[in-house]
């Protein structure tokens, strides 16, 4: 990514957070238990706008398995693994010597692979984990841009109308979108902090995700 494209990505994150905050603030969750999630989403938008780090847990994590073991990991196991990384503080994440670059390659390839299958939630969680470790590469950039492209005009994320209709009465489209929106915002916030540190100051201009996508696709 060129510095110009990276700057455009920063702007897109910022714009996405502003729109998402509006969507989150205007809606009243049907279920009471969704309110903390809504508030957490708003908190992430604010932190992203101010360039502040998303909340961090105190977990320590050691990654000692061969990096290739994550390729065929069951979805639920990979989700748990990445969520553990995602809440660990960067300083406490230990990676087996000599495996860092391969772990970066596989983790970023998996992020793109899962969003390719429409699994935006797991793609977001992997992206957040990769950012927490401090990984940066073109596949992570492409995954992030893909997530940004999932934002609807109302500010919420997730192109899930058809899936919700298929599920019928059991589905709650708003709840599904709330979960996806918060997961994506969390990944964007982690990426923003990872890429810029605490010094990031977004400008008021916003580039459209579509233009950004095209720019990053140029070779």
């Amino acid at each position, binding site marked *: 990514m060129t510095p110009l494209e990276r700057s455009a990505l920063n702007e897109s994150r910022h714009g996405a957070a502003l729109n998402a905050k509006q969507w989150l603030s205007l809606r009243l969750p049907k279920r009471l238990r969704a309110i903390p999630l809504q508030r957490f989403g708003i908190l992430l938008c604010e932190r992203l706008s101010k360039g502040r780090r998303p909340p961090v847990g105190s977990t320590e994590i050691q990654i000692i398995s*061969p*990096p*290739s073991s994550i*390729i*065929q990991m069951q979805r639920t196991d990979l989700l748990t693994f990445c969520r553990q990384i995602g809440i660990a503080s960067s300083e406490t994440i230990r990676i087996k010597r000599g495996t860092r670059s*391969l772990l970066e*390659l*596989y983790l970023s*390839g*998996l992020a*793109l*692979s899962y*969003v*390719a299958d429409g699994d935006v939630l797991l793609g977001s969680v992997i992206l957040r984990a990769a950012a927490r470790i401090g990984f940066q590469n*073109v*596949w992570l950039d*492409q*995954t992030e841009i*893909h997530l940004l492209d999932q934002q609807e005009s109302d500010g919420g994320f997730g192109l899930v109308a058809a899936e919700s209709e298929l599920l019928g009465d059991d589905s709650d489209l708003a709840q599904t979108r709330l979960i996806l929106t918060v997961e994506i915002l969390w990944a964007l916030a982690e990426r923003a902090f990872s890429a810029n540190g605490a010094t990031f100051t977004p400008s008021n201009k916003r580039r459209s995700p579509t233009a950004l*996508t095209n720019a990053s*696709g*140029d*070779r």
Partner: protein
Amino acid sequence: MLATIAEKAGRLAVAWVTRNLIRFRLYITAELTADSIKALSELAILYSFLKDVGSDGEDSGVQDTIVSWESFLVEQCNTPKYAQMARKRPGQAFYLLMPYLALRRTGYRSPYHERTLDLLRRWRYPEATEVVPHRLLDRQYFLWKAGCLDSEPDWIRQYEATSLRYMTHPQYLDDEAAYVFTHTLFYLTDFGRHKPPLPSVELKHLIQLGEYLVIHNWRHRQWDILGELLVGLRGLQRQRSRIYVDAANAFCETQHEDGSVPPGQDRKISNSHPSEDSEDLLFRRRYHTTFVMALFAFAHLHS
């Protein structure tokens, strides 16, 4: 280490094919089917590839094993009702004659099929059949290798006509796109044996795309596609990269003790014929990926 594993896997795959040679006959039933032409074509392509590898000095004991393949292929190609078909359906002649074209590459000539090729030239085939760019590349490659073209195709121009240059957002690629990728790389690399004659920016793009597709198809356990991707990456000279080695080891681990390789959990085969027994079904399900294993193994060993 990988070389040893690959050599064993390649030899086992070739031995399995040899044991199942009879199942590759064109007329398993009274009717000629697309499946049986495809299977015999792939056998002939693998045979010509192994002969090429052998003539380059590769000696893994397979050259003795595949002697029986040649007489079988010649016998099948000379079945009259099959041989006549290309003259009856010139629009499909390239596809129908693929087993013969692959044999022709190894030096074999059949007067009947040579006459068919003359007739097809007069009737302006295969050019009169419209094909998409990666299929045109496929056609040009096999005709060139069979010695049917006067001059070598312009590979760069052929590549530029395909969609590969525009595949810059891999998350949107489906199995069909992966097919375009693997088969274009087959021809541009001469099945993993040469670096494609492309500018470095394109090579870098293809490596990045190929490595992503490796991770995606490895995750999905699409072993046939994974093996084909490894052949392409071998041609792109990535055989020492960690991702190539890890994925190649994972691919080799899928091989059964008898030498056959399953296609992967998501792959489907067309409906079985009522007369097929379970051995036939197993064969039809596994032969393609077993071919891919042999291709991968001997492309990897070739230097």
